[in-house]
């Protein structure tokens, strides 16, 4: 009998079959996991086999109002390596080709391999276009290497640095916030570059090809549905006038201060300068880190845009506002004469009983003290405390209609609002019913708690030029050829009739034209300029020199404010600078001999020869 014993073991087939079925189930379970559940593997497969090339759009240019290019896009290149694409590399030749040392090449390759076989690592950054041309010609000899284009900004005239802003590498935060950016991408960080980033940057394109393990392209158009071309960024036309801007920077070079020039009829900012300024080209490319550090440490704060962010007390210039709103309120009229009572408040110069127009010319402090006292107190509501509080709030509303205490549309980030105090403000300082006009009288002449910005002061000049209204100052004339961005240049009325401005404008014209007027240095033969000087106290240093003006008086083309810090009275520096700018803008030229005296740094002040006029 064969296999008698063995036959007894026939039940063992079930153990064997059990083992086979167990293993089979384990395999199928594993397949379920790999093929049905684990989605990550599919993503990794397409990461490996699809080489997605991002086509970078070219960034929109920034132009001046006449189409002159202020900022253009230029390219530099990064040499990158993909370790898995490398083949039979002659490291020595490659290092020569790449323009780096053999050791640097070895170190880069080692670093790249350690980082990832499948990801690109930079070998050399910021290669200039000329060198790129040389390298591109023999790129084919070095498989695994690629030259990546990096858009860079070129500031053709190196002007309006603060307005245009910085274009720099996107930070980790930017990457997290916006999926558009990839590591190493650039974006507008400040100024117009940042505000109009989305329009300027355009849309990235994408092209997918299927590659093999050596990164050679094997299939094109497989994922064509996902492909799309890049859309270039929109060109941005600013409201700036390049000639005027350059001229303003020329005149402010070496000084501290600002210039804001506005076209009164449109609210377009023709020039905006904050000094000290710096060459924006320093902030691009390899020099950025060093330049940024030194700018940050500079005690003059060159990174700070004084034109819209700095706040100063308005000083005498504020008397223009006081006069206009007082007439509108009916507390004075053009012919109202008030005594120059220097017991109330100090004054300068020989005058005794000015009307409004002369009070502007003489910048008579007691006159405007009395004007504001009338304003605040003329509506009696019982106690003089309550009357003052009520009057101040109505006064404040009227002043704010001139754009003071507001951000004027806030078209540049960080634009300051300044301060026009309300009754509540003084309640906080002195306590409710603990103050009246005599407590706060210094705001009557633009001192005290008032704070305004150079932009607001230029806007005031525009309001005076327009006789009672303004368009919100803005910086963009056109975006992508379809006009300005929505909502800019909104017209605002001060609510004061045009006719009421006549005595004020007469006064302003006389500030410049009258013998002994504080703004005599702004006189230009053949152009009727209306101006007003201001002298902002800056203890213990020299006062800030301020001047606002518009011209010509009939059909005004330009309104501006000029601030020169620590430079003495408004007539000394700010007025002549303003005049040179007006002349430049209206006639296209200036008397260079006259201009020469105002270039460069301000010389140390000579001993005062006469009492400074505010």
């Amino acid at each position, binding site marked *: 009998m064969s*296999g008698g014993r063995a036959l007894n073991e026939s039940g063992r087939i079930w153990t064997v079959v059990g083992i086979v079925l167990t293993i089979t189930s384990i395999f199928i379970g594993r397949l379920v996991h790999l093929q049905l559940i684990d989605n990550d593997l599919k993503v990794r497969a397409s990461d490996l086999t699809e080489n997605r090339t991002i086509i970078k759009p070219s960034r929109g240019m920034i132009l001046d109002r006449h189409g002159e290019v202020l900022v253009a896009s230029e390219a530099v290149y990064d040499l990158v390596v993909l370790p898995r694409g490398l083949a039979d590399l002659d490291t020595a030749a490659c290092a020569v080709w790449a323009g780096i040392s053999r050791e640097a090449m070895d170190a880069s390759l080692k670093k790249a391999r350690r980082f990832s076989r499948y990801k690109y690592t930079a070998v050399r950054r910021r290669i200039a276009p000329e060198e790129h041309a040389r390298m591109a010609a023999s790129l084919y000899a070095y498989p695994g290497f690629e030259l990546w284009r990096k858009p860079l900004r070129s500031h053709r005239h190196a002007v309006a640095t603060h307005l245009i802003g910085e274009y720099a590498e996107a930070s980790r935060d930017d990457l997290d916030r916006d999926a558009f950016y990839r590591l190493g991408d650039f974006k507008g960080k400040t100024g117009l570059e940042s505000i109009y980033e989305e329009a300027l940057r355009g849309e990235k394109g994408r092209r997918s090809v299927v590659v093999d393990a050596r990164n050679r392209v094997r299939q094109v158009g497989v994922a064509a549905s996902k492909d799309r071309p890049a859309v270039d960024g929109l060109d941005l036309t600013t409201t700036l006038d390049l000639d005027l801007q350059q001229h303003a920077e020329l005149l402010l070079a070496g000084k501290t201060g600002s210039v804001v020039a506005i076209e009164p009829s449109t609210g377009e900012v023709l020039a905006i300068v904050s000094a000290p300024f710096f060459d924006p080209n320093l902030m691009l490319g390899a020099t950025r880190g060093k330049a940024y550090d030194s700018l940050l440490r500079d005690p003059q704060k060159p990174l700070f845009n004084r034109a819209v962010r700095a706040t100063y007390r308005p000083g005498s210039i504020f008397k223009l506002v006081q006069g206009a709103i007082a007439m509108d309120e009916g507390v004075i009229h053009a012919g109202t004469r008030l005594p120059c009572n220097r017991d109330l408040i100090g004054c300068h110069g020989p005058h005794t009983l000015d009307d409004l127009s002369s009070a502007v010319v003489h910048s008579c402090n007691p006159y405007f003290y009395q004007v504001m006292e009338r304003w605040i107190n003329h509506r009696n509501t019982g106690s003089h405390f309550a009357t003052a509080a009520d009057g101040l709030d109505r006064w404040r509303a009227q002043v704010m209609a001139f754009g003071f205490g507001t951000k004027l549309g806030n078209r540049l980030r960080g634009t300051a609002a300044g301060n026009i105090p309300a009754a509540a403000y003084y309640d906080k300082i002195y306590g409710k019913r603990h103050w009246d006009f005599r407590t706060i009288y210094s705001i009557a002449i633009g001192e005290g708690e008032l704070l305004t910005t150079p932009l607001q002061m230029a806007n005031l000049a525009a309001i005076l030029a327009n006789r009672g209204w303004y368009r919100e100052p803005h910086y963009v004339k056109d975006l992508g050829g379809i006009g300005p961005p929505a909502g800019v240049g909104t017209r605002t009325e001060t609510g004061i009739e045009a006719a009421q401005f006549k005595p004020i404008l007469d006064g302003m014209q006389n500030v410049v034209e009258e013998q002994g007027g504080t703004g005599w240095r702004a006189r230009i033969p053949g152009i009727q300029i209306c101006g007003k000087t201001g002298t902002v106290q800056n203890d213990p240093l020299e006062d800030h020199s301020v001047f606002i003006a518009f011209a010509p008086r009939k059909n005004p083309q330009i309104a501006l404010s000029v601030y020169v810090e620590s430079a003495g009275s408004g007539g000394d520096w700010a007025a002549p600078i303003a005049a040179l700018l007006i002349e430049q803008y209206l006639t296209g030229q200036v008397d260079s001999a006259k201009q020469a005296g105002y270039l460069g740094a301000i010389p140390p002040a000579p001993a005062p020869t006469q009492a400074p006029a505010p």
Partner: protein
Amino acid sequence: MSAHRQNINRNIDWALLSMFALLALLGWLNLVAASTGPDSEISWTLGTMYGRQLIWLGLSTAVGLLILRIEGEFFLRTTWINYALTLALLAAVLVVGRKVGGARSWFGFGGFGIQPSEFAKFGTAVALSWWLARQQGLHDMKSMVGALMIIGLPAGLILLQPDAGTVLVFVGFVFALYREGMNGFVLVAGFSALVMVVFTVITGATTVQYPWLGPWSGILRFWLIASVVFTAGVLVGRNLVRPRNRPRITRNLILSAIAALAFSAVLHTTMATVLRSHQRERIHVLFGIEVDNPDADYNIRNARIAIGSGGFSGRGWCEGPMTGFGFVPEHETDFIYCKWSEEWGFLGSSLLVLLFAAIVIRIFFIAERQRSNFTRVYAYSFGGILFMHMLINIGMVLGLAPVIGIPLPMMSYGGSSVLAFSIMLAVLLRLDAERFSVLR
């Protein structure tokens, strides 16, 4: 005998034959895809990889048909010629063989090559069948020693090549031995050893190292924990065992604990000293232990990605970019299953696993219906070998077993393997077809 010969065709197990033919067909179609990237056209010439494979398939069919004409008695009588030839070829290849990839395992004839180790499986299978049929099972020392020698001799020669994968396949004979009466404890012990390998490797490589203990610190800590658990288990388990059985069970437990400790120690030392660094890396990769070399798991990682990217229904025939564009090395030989999985997805992958399982199980059932001990042992040997191929190869590409290079039967490119499996199949079909007439 002539009367029965007429019944050969009718008695052939058509189910097994057709499943095997289906496997061969799928395997060949898959090879067409493997040598045709998604970006190229199929060229129907014999100069291609699938062209050569087709020649091998044709040759295998011819040899198979010839074998079906030969009486089973022939293989019984030529057992020792066969076995001697196997050993002679295995010895010869060590001397005159062509060295490929570090192993001397090929005879080269111009463009074609022959791997004697593939045919050694057949030679060993018939010799083992002859011996166990003669001994009427495995129930004494003599039969056991004989069986182990028959398996061990060719396995030893193959280990000298060295070709660890094929040696591992010889473990498949354990199914035949088990069926013929080997103590079932061997299977349990084998399984326990496997578990211990896993624990030893993982704890040896990952546990905190105590500097004064050197490389032993991890393993010692593992054993400290294990012995606490073991002691607690004994104390609790005692109460579940009848008192008269306690001495025996306690003795067995202590012996197994000592054996396990010794095994683990030997294994750990082997890992640390004998294995070369790339082999250690492969094992570490399998267990998910971080290795210093980022490319150590390149193959297996990309294999897994290729399989995963197949999804439910796959990329389609000839359309798999992972395998088609060179991301999976050896995707036409050892990693052929990746090709199949990427292009046919979960549906195809599980179908292939089930097809293999069905073939193996069918062979075991065929074995059980034999009156001939020789045929039964042969069938178990064949089934066991096939199963080991599937276990190691698919387990490897699925990341469940370390990277060991052996072909997937009828799927991987390679003539020797196809011819060897076809011969083994044909012999089984012939022997089985004679089941009603032959009593050995």
